Every structure is written in structure tokens, then in C-alpha cells.
């Protein structure tokens, strides 16, 4: 993304203004109106008081004061961060060996395997979460399978409606997100680097630790980001398999725009989530710069 500045117009550049305008119009409308303007509205609304009208009234920081002082929001934010962090960690750690296999061992099965690991990405998220609901339910697949096999005699409630269920379900739902960025990073490591490492006498594990792992860090960080962002704001999985003890920040935002009907406060919560994500992105960028000397 840092190459934007390098796009100097060359002398032979002679794109007609009409063509340029027509080609920039659809994307420009969507990006400026639907993304930037809509996000601007959220920011604006966050500083308004709730008087029941669409855009609220007055100018106030009261929403943010409530978020900062009410321990409920600290608990829920912290819980969201812990759950999203655990999901990210689990997803990236389990995805790494798969990406490694794809990059170095898959051979001619590579395209098929790549297709198989990305296929669930294109299936309904709601159905993937629903699948876990029937797996973990009281009269569900897991309980009945254990009883059937004689491992225990009566169903246990311990699966559904726990934060653990949320972590497992989210980790499964977002697993396909993590493999591709790591695979791309591993696949683009110059083979000469690996050969140099082994020529210089590095044992496989040393070569992995000193050459492969640092060089794949940009992919790992990108993977962590694309898993962390959707999970930290998720409200469907906590509602389906989480129970009251795993309410996440996304659930609170959703209820402000639903039952609670306090849009300005919901907007303020959204702004806080975006700030948290911004911090995580900046952290990842910083880490990327430390590792990403390759390009």
C-alpha cells in the first residue's frame, strides 16, 4: 500500500477525462458515500444525546463517559478481547502447519487442497454456527454420541452456553480466513534463502526458526488481523451458543440499535470498537515492519 505515492504520471499517460470519470464513478460513490460518509455518521452520532430522533440532539461526550465509567462495558470489552484473542491464536496456530504443508509439501495436490480449505469460506456463516449449536446442544450430537458409546450415562449441559463454546465455534467459523495469507507469505519466500540456510549447515529446525518463520510473519500478522476483526465484533455466535455469560461488545451494539433503542450510545460503542481495532492494526503494522524487511 506504500506504493501509492510512486504512481507518477508518465508522459504517455493520456487517459481521457470522460473515461476516467466514468470509471471512477461507481467505486467512488461506494467508497466515499457508503463507507467513509457512513462511518462519519457513526462518529457524529456517537457525540450526540439520545432524544429518540434519528441523529440525536446536542453535542456531548456523555456516551463515552458512560462507556469509560460503567464497569459492565469494561467487563464486556475485556471479554470480547480475550475471546477474539484466543480465537485468533487458535486459528493462526492451527492454520500455520496447513499453510506450511501447502507451500512446501503439497506437490500436485496443492490446488485441490487450497480449494478444499477455502471452500467453507463461501458457505453460510449462519449455518456453520448453527452446526455447532446442534453439536453442543443438551440433546445434541456430542452428548448423544458420548451416551451412545457408553462413556457417560446422562447428557451434560457443560458444552452449550459457555465462553468456551463461543471460542470453539468462532475458531471453526473463521479457520479458512487464516490459511491463505500465511500460505501466500510462505510460498513467496525465495527458495534460494532455504538453500542458503541448508548449505550453511543449518539443521531443518534451525532453518525453520531463523529463516522460514521470520519471513512468514507478515502473512501470520495479516491472518491474525482478518480473524481478529470479525470475531471481536461478532454477535451471532454469542447469541447462538454463548449464553448470557459470553455477551460480547457486538451483542451490546446490536441491542442498542434494537431493543435498547439508544442509537447514539450504540454509535459510541462502535467508535470504541473501531479504536481498539485501529490499535491492533497499528500494533500489527509495527510488528510487520520489524519482520517485514523482505520486501
Amino acid at each position, binding site marked *: 500500500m506504500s506504493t501509492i505515492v510512486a504512481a507518477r504520471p508518465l508522459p504517455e499517460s493520456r487517459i481521457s477525462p470522460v473515461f476516467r470519470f466514468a470509471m471512477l464513478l461507481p467505486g467512488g460513490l461506494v467508497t466515499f458515500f457508503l463507507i467513509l460518509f457512513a462511518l462519519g455518521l457513526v462518529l457524529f452520532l456517537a457525540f450526540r444525546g439520545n432524544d429518540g430522533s434519528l441523529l440525536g440532539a446536542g453535542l456531548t461526550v456523555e456516551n463515552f463517559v458512560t462507556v469509560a465509567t460503567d464497569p459492565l462495558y469494561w467487563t464486556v470489552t475485556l471479554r470480547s478481547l480475550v475471546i477474539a484473542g484466543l480465537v485468533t491464536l487458535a486459528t493462526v496456530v492451527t492454520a500455520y502447519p496447513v499453510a506450511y504443508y501447502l507451500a512446501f509439501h503439497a506437490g500436485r495436490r496443492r490446488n485441490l487442497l487450497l480449494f478444499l480449505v477455502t471452500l467453507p469460506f463461501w458457505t453460510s456463516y*449462519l449455518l456453520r454456527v448453527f452446526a455447532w449449536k446442534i453439536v453442543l446442544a443438551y440433546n445434541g450430537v456430542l452428548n448423544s454420541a458420548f451416551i451412545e458409546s457408553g462413556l457417560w450415562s446422562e447428557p451434560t449441559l457443560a458444552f452449550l452456553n459457555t465462553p468456551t463454546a463461543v471460542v470453539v465455534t468462532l475458531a471453526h467459523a473463521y479457520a479458512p480466513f487464516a490459511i491463505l495469507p500465511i500460505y501466500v507469505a510462505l510460498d513467496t519466500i525465495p527458495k534460494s534463502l532455504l538453500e542458503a540456510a541448508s548449505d550453511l549447515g543449518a539443521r531443518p529446525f534451525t532453518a525453520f526458526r531463523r529463516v522460514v518463520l521470520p519471513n512468514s510473519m507478515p502473512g501470520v500478522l495479516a491472518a491474525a488481523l482478518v480473524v481478529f476483526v470479525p470475531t471481536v465484533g461478532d454477535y451471532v455466535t454469542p447469541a447462538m451458543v454463548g449464553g448470557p455469560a459470553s455477551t460480547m461488545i*457486538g451483542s451490546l451494539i446490536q441491542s442498542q440499535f434494537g431493543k435498547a433503542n439508544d442509537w447514539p450510545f450504540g454509535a459510541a460503542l462502535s467508535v470504541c470498537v473501531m479504536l481498539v481495532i485501529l490499535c491492533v492494526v497499528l500494533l500489527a503494522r509495527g510488528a510487520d515492519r520489524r519482520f517485514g524487511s523482505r520486501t
Partner: protein
Amino acid sequence: MSATRSGTNAGGRWLGLYVLAYLVFLYLPILLIPLFSFNDSIQAAFPLQGFTLEWYATLYGNPALSGALGNSLVIGVVAASGATLCGITVSYMDLYGRSPLAATISAVARLPILIPGVIVGISLLILVNLVGLGPSRVAIVLGHILVALPATVVVMRSRFAAIPKTIREAALDLGASDWMTFRRVMLPLSLPAVLSAFMLAFLTSFDEFIVVFFLAGTEPTLPLYIWSQLRFPRSLPTVMALGTVILTLSFVIAALAEILRHRGLGAARRNPA
């Protein structure tokens, strides 16, 4: 990732087993939905009670369901068309427009990856209420264009970048206008990617729930219909039958999109200028 010195083959074999286990973990929960959709019991539990097609029969002649299906199809096609159009133009101008504006638009178009769905949903909810649309099918279309945009931009950008630069330059040197070059040279060369982007955008819209939850008015889409049915334990088998149909459809469309994308890339490499 074995640390042994016994060569990469043994390590690769263990890793292969791991990948197999990973795939089982990935697919097993999803495949339970079709399994229990044929099970003659209202509960999704072992032991299996025998084979039935009864739950599929309940799908037929259900006006709420067919209404939701119709909505999902219409919204999916319109949103996918919009997202594909934006993906084509944004990535084309990003690569050949040589302007900071085009580069900015391209960067912002990929921004929705970094915004949780719930925030995309509420920001558009505020927007559509502000312009007087309110929650409606149009609002859902706008939301789905946003959600599908990053994927279409990525697919189209990699396709345009794979076309040798000389082809476009030759067209321009021979006197073709920008429009002619785009319409008669670059677009036909990337047709498989256009179809692939369209199908992936359609799937994204067809299966999307998080954003649609905020933007739907009185006409629900298929995922919203499923969500509303989840409250009733009695309709669980019907949901599983419906889920099986949707999963099958998604698998087929995603496979076609993947084949098209590869065919397109392969053709580009085989016919260099």
C-alpha cells in the same frame, strides 16, 4: 514441522496427516447438517432413527420460505452485479488510472475487511434512514455491495495484473480509445475472472446474515428466515433440510467460480503477447 533429520519426507507425511485431520475438523460439523436432515427424528442426536425425506417435503409449498428465497435471489444478483462493476472499475483504474484518487478509492474499497460486520450494518442503517430509504431491499443491496467489494476487487485486480502490459499498450498504440481498449481488449481477456467475481459476490450476499439483520425491512432474506425459525425447536429438521440445499448450492457455485478463476489465469499465461 518435524525437527527430525530423517529428511523432509517423514516430516511431510506427518504434516499430511495433520492436514487431513484439519480438513475433517473443518468439514465434520458442516456435514452433520445434511446427515441429520435425512434423519427421521425431530432431534439432532444419535442414534440415527432411519432415513426420511419428510423434512425436504416441508420445504415445498411454504410461502414464507419461497418469498425469502425470491428476495435472496434478487438481492444476490443485483448486489453481485453492483459489486462486480465496482470491482472491475476500481481495480482497473488502480492499475492503469495513474491517479492518487484511483489508488485511494482502491484502498478504501478494501477497507470493509477491517470493519466488523455489526458496524457496517449499523452505519448503513443510519445512512439509509437519513436518506429516507429505511430498512428495505435496496438497503440490503447497498450493504451487500460493501461486504462483497473487497473480494471482487482482489479477484479482478489479480486478473488485470496478470494480463501482459504489452497487450494494452499495443491497443492504445494502434489508436484504440481508452474505452475501446477497456471494452474490446481488457474486459474480454478477463471474462472468466468477471464471472468468478460475480459468483463469489453472489454467494457472499446469498449467505450474508450479520449486515442484513440491521437492514431488512418487512421482506426477509433466506438467512433471516432461518434465524427466525431457530427459535422453534419443532422446525429444526426443516432448517437442516433447507441448510443442506443451501450448502449444496454454495459448494457448486464456489467450485464453478474457482474453476473459472483458474481457467482465466491459465489462459493468460498460455497466450502471452
